């Protein structure tokens, strides 16, 4: 079976001369739930924009489900569902009208379009809003409507560019459940997000792009195994000044009185608790400082910054770890 997405040597140079993509290669297998991560301006949206035909590429090849974008652009578009980062509705149109028009652009007969509209609007809890103008919807509803619009023609590959940005946690979790369900049903999903927790919990494979280049491309599991330390925050009772300053856990007192520390792979938390106990400190609660993937992501991207001598370190320099 062909891959859902194959990108070869993709370059994009914008009119001002800015090289947004420097010849990237990327493969997403069918059925995958794939995260494309990177800091702002790294090239994520440019990559997905080229795949979606919203950005002109400078050179390179894009194939979707085995179809070459240059040879059969309409064929590629039929395979794709696109959920862009920014709202791009006509605010004065009604939800149902937008969806029936979108189905029309894909050549769907109205009967089938209406069935799909009802199915996805119900699944994403928007059915009651079908006759409302878009401007009457909340931000979370608009996000969900964009997903319905992207799915209306039942694509093989769904591209989600920051699908849950600005959505409250309850709705976000229900959207995750929905996306996991359609992925299980066979839809390949490519996701960009700034919520690393989202990528960690949803995605099986991951690529990190920085300054127009793919710097990591692996499974989420493999990536997390690279971590050699983890950061925690402990709420304590007692005098932090009694903890020996030369401890190996890089302990710091935070503004709110809690303690931040790092534990390396091979160490264990009992050793930290013993250190606190010896100092007469009681640990009230303990939590990870950040999401594991977020910690790793920051390390990888920071390690990819050019060094003073111009060199770029490509390996995660201080890959965070989990114990």
């Amino acid at each position, binding site marked *: 079976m062909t891959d859902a997405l194959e990108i070869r040597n993709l370059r994009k140079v914008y009119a001002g001369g800015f090289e947004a993509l420097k010849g990237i290669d990327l493969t997403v297998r069918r059925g995958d739930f794939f995260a494309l991560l990177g800091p702002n301006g790294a090239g994520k949206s440019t990559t997905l924009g080229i795949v979606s035909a919203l950005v002109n590429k400078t050179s390179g090849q894009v194939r979707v489900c085995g179809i070459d974008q240059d040879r059969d652009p309409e064929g590629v578009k039929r395979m794709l569902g696109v959920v862009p980062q920014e709202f791009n509705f006509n605010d004065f149109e009604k939800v149902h009208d937008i969806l029936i028009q979108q189905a*029309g652009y894909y050549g769907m007969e109205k009967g089938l379009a209406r069935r799909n509209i009802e199915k996805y609007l119900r699944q994403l809890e928007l059915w009651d809003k079908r006759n409302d103008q878009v401007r009457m919807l909340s931000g979370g509803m608009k996000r969900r409507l964009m997903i319905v619009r992207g799915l209306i023609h039942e694509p093989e590959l769904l591209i989600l560019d920051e699908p849950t940005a600005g959505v409250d946690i309850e709705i976000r979790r229900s959207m995750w459940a929905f996306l996991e369900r359609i992925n299980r049903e066979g839809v390949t999903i490519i996701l960009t997000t700034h919520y690393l927790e989202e990528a960690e919990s949803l995605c099986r494979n991951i690529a990190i792009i920085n300054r127009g280049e793919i710097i990591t491309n692996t499974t989420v599991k493999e990536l997390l195994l690279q971590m050699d330390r983890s950061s925690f925050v402990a709420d304590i009772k007692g005098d932090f000044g009694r903890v020996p300053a030369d401890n190996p856990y890089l302990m710091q007192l935070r503004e709110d009185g809690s303690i931040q520390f790092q534990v390396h792979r091979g160490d264990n938390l009992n050793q930290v608790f013993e250190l606190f106990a010896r100092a007469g400190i009681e640990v009230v609660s303990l939590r990870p400082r950040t999401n594991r993937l977020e910690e790793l992501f920051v390390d990888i991207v920071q390690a990819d910054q050019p060094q003073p001598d111009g060199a770029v370190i490509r390996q995660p320099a201080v890959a965070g770890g989990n114990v």
Partner: protein
Amino acid sequence: MWQYRIAFQAIAGKEIRRFLRIWQQTLIPPVMTMVLYFVIFGNLIGRRIGEMGGFDYMAFIVPGLIMMSVITSAYGNVSSSFFGNKFQRSIEEILVAPVPNYVILAGFVAGGVTRGIMVGLLVTVVSLGFTSFAIHNPVIVLSVILLTAILFSVGGFINAMYATKFDDVALVPTFILTPLTYLGGVFYSIELLPPFWQWVSQLNPILHMVNAFRFGVLGVSDVNVWAAFGMIAVFLTVLVSWAMWLLKRGKGLRS
């Protein structure tokens, strides 16, 4: 084209619903403007002018005013709607879908043509309250009105492709379309002009369209009707090719 008929219907239907939904802004104002022309130029001033081209002045200006309303409505519909789609980025809904460029162009043009012809019909009906006329050649009337509406819809599309702000949409109608229309023989026969200005007027494509239409309605024209059709065909070919080239490049649509 047949396989894309649903996509075409979706775009054209959306465009038609758009201007029908705001009919107070899209259908009534041009009719009101033409009523004022009929009253002031046709009725009040026209009485003093007497005959032109062998017809009373009111009958003479009616075909030109119908044509003027068709041109401005067709052009304005596509330029404002397509630019609005660009501005709100809802054009991306179409760009990500498997819709070939010629279907996108045809869909928007269909909206412009429909509005142009609807306004033309309304102006025609209103004009019957001021004068009466028989149609000299219905085939020429229909073909000129249709081709002109298509031509200016494509023109509006090109304008919107280049436009980066709302002001840009108003520039061409204000500084090019309106002067060419007023100097395009709507209110006078170019026989009234000195030979040099008659020759200059012949360069104005709208003069040929207005006169071809006037020939279809009244049977009189300042220009050769078949040359007018030829001119429309040439302009149509150039503008459609231009619009298709812009769509292929993604001018103003894709970075």
